C-alpha cells in the first residue's frame, strides 16, 4: 500500500507528467521532421528505433536524410531540451528560494551575469571548455549582487524590490557585456548572434559541453525540492521546523545558477522560460515544489523545443532568434503573473 492509498486525498501526480511528457515527445518529433529538408515521420521514428540496442529496423531514409537527422536536427532538439529544462527548473527553484513568483534567471540578472562571463571567454579566445565555468562565475556574482541590493533595508520587503534590484543588476551587466563585446571587433558578430539567444549552430559538441553541468544542477535541485516546500513558510518557521535555512538557500541558489549558466553558455540569453514554465506547471499540478520542480524540467524542455521550432520556421529560410519567440510568449505571461501577485497581496 502506498501513501496515496493510505491518505486517500493525496493529489495524483502522474497525469500532468504524462501530459507534459507527451507534449515534449510530440514537439520533438515535429522538430525532427519539419525543416527545409522535410523528413518522413515514419522514416525518422524507424531510424531512431534502429539505434536502440535490441532493435533492427530499416528506416528507408537516404544517407543525406540520415545525416540531416543525426547531425543537424537531433542535436538541436537535444540542446533545446537541455537548455529549456535547465531554465525551467532554475526558474522554479529561484521562485521557491526567494519566495517570489516573479523570480526568474533573466529577471534576477543571473542570465546577464552569465552572459558577461561567457563573453569574456569568447572575446579573450580562451578554450570553449571554460565557457560554463565563466558563465557560472558571472551568474553567481550577479545573483549575489541582486540579493544584497534587495536586502539593503534589512529584509526583502516586497516582491518588486527583488525584481527591481534584478533589473538594475541585469542592465549593468549587459552594459559591461556590450562594452567587452565591442572591444574585440573580430568576434563582435559571433558574440552578438549568440547573446540574442539561439540554438542555430548546435551540434553535439554543445550538448556534451553543458550536459554534465545541467545534470549536476538538476540532481541537486530535485533532491532539494522537499526543502523548498519548508522554505515556503518563511525563515522563522522553517528554522523552527528544523531547516538550516542559510545552508539550504545557498545550495539551491548555487544549483539554479549553475543550471542557468550552463544554458546561457551555449544558447545565449533566452528570457521568460523560468516564468512561463513553472507557473503553467502550477496550474496543472498544484503548488508543492515536490511536483513543480521535476515537472518544470520536462515542461521547460518541451517549451523550448517548440519555441525553437517556431523560431526556425516562422520566417523560413531566415531564423528568428529563439529569445524573441520566448519573449513574445513570456512577456504577456509575465504581465498576467504580475497582475495576479498584486491582487493576492
Amino acid at each position: 500500500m502506498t501513501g496515496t492509498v493510505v491518505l486517500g486525498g493525496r493529489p495524483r501526480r502522474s497525469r500532468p507528467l504524462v501530459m507534459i511528457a507527451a507534449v515534449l515527445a510530440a514537439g520533438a518529433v515535429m522538430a525532427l521532421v519539419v525543416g527545409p529538408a522535410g523528413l518522413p515521420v515514419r522514416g525518422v521514428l524507424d531510424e531512431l528505433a534502429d539505434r536502440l540496442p535490441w532493435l533492427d529496423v530499416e528506416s528507408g531514409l537516404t544517407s543525406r536524410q540520415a545525416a540531416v537527422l543525426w547531425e543537424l536536427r537531433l542535436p538541436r532538439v537535444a540542446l533545446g531540451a537541455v537548455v529549456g529544462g535547465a531554465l525551467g527548473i532554475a526558474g522554479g527553484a529561484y521562485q521557491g528560494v526567494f519566495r517570489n513568483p516573479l523570480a526568474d534567471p533573466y529577471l534576477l540578472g543571473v542570465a546577464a551575469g552569465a552572459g558577461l562571463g561567457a563573453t569574456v571567454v569568447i572575446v579573450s579566445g580562451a578554450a570553449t571548455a571554460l565557457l560554463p565555468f565563466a558563465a557560472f562565475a558571472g551568474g553567481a556574482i550577479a545573483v549575489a549582487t541582486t540579493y544584497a541590493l534587495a536586502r539593503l533595508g534589512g529584509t526583502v520587503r516586497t516582491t518588486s524590490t527583488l525584481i527591481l534590484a534584478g533589473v538594475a543588476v541585469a542592465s549593468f551587466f549587459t552594459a559591461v557585456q556590450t562594452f567587452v563585446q565591442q572591444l574585440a571587433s573580430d568576434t563582435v558578430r559571433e558574440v552578438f548572434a549568440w547573446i540574442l539567444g539561439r540554438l542555430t549552430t548546435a551540434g553535439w559538441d554543445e550538448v556534451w559541453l553543458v550536459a554534465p553541468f545541467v545534470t549536476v544542477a538538476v540532481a541537486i535541485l530535485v533532491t532539494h525540492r522537499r526543502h523548498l516546500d519548508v522554505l515556503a513558510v518563511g525563515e522563522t518557521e522553517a528554522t523552527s521546523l528544523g531547516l538550516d535555512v542559510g545552508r539550504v538557500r545557498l545550495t539551491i541558489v548555487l544549483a539554479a545558477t549553475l543550471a542557468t549558466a550552463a544554458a546561457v553558455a551555449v544558447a545565449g540569453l533566452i528570457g521568460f522560460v523560468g516564468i512561463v514554465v513553472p507557473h503553467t506547471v502550477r496550474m496543472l499540478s498544484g503548488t508543492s515544489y515536490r511536483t513543480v520542480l521535476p515537472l518544470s524540467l520536462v515542461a521547460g524542455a518541451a517549451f523550448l523545443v517548440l519555441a525553437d521550432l517556431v523560431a526556425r520556421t516562422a520566417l523560413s529560410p531566415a531564423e528568428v532568434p529563439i529569445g524573441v519567440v520566448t519573449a513574445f510568449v513570456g512577456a504577456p505571461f509575465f504581465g498576467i503573473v504580475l497582475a495576479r501577485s498584486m491582487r493576492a497581496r
Partner: protein
Amino acid sequence: MSGVGFASVSAGYGDRCVLHGVDLTVAPGEWVALIGPNGAGKSTLLKAAAGVIPTTGEVRVGSDVVAGMSPRHRARRVALVPQAPVIPSGATVFEYVLLGRNPHIPYWRMESRHDLEVTRSEMERLDLLTLATRPVDSLSGGERQRTVLARALAQQPDVLLLDEPTSGLDLGHQQQFLESVDELRRRLGFCVLTAVHDLTLGAQYADRLVLLAGGRVVGVGAPGEVLTAERLRRYYAAEVTVFVDAAGRPVVVPDRAVRRSGNGAAGR
C-alpha cells in the same frame, strides 16, 4: 518527555533587547501560560525557546542545551505555533501538516511511509482528514488553527509553544482549541508554554501563570496568586475586579466605574 528551562535568558531583535535575564522552569507535562502587556516579551520568550532568535543565557530541553542542538534535532523536541503562521498559497492541508515531519526526514531523503502515517494520524486526531486536499488558505479560522496545531504535533515534540493561539477565534472555537491541546498534552505528555491575551481563559487551562513586564518575570504561580487587581493595575494599567468561579479559578472583569472615577490614572 522533558520539560523546558530558562536560565538568565536575554534576547531581542538587532540592537533592541526585549528579554532581560529570564529564569523559568516548565515541568514535563505542565501547562504554563505567559501573560503580560503588549511588548512584555511573551513572543520573544517563545522564539528563544524555539531557537529561532539569537539568545544569551541558557535554554534547556530536558538536560540538553537548545543552542547546542542542530536545527533538526531541536525541531524534534520543540514545536512552535506562531501567532500569525505563514500559509503558503495553494498548499493543501496534507502538504502543510507533512511539513512537521521535516526534522524526522534525513536531509537527502523524501518522507517515508512512517512519516505519511504520522501525518495521517495527526490529521485524524484533529479531525482534518476530510479537509486533506483543501488549500489551507481557504479554511475557516478554527480549521486553519487546527491545521497549524497538527503540523506542530507531527513534529512529535516534548515542548509545544503556542503564541496567542486563540486570537482571531470566536469563543466556541477558542474553547474547542484549548480543550484539544489540554487533552493531547495529558495523553501524549508534552508540556505547553503559551502566550495568552485573555487572562480568564489562560487561567482556566494553565497550571501556572507567568507575568512578564518589560522583559522580566514579575510574577509566577497558580492563576489565583498571580491575577490580582493590584498587579493588573500596576503592569497593565488596567482597572479590573477579580472574581473566583465555582472551580476556584480567577475571573478577570474590566471595571469601568473605577476607571471613570479617576483612580484609573494610577498606571499612566
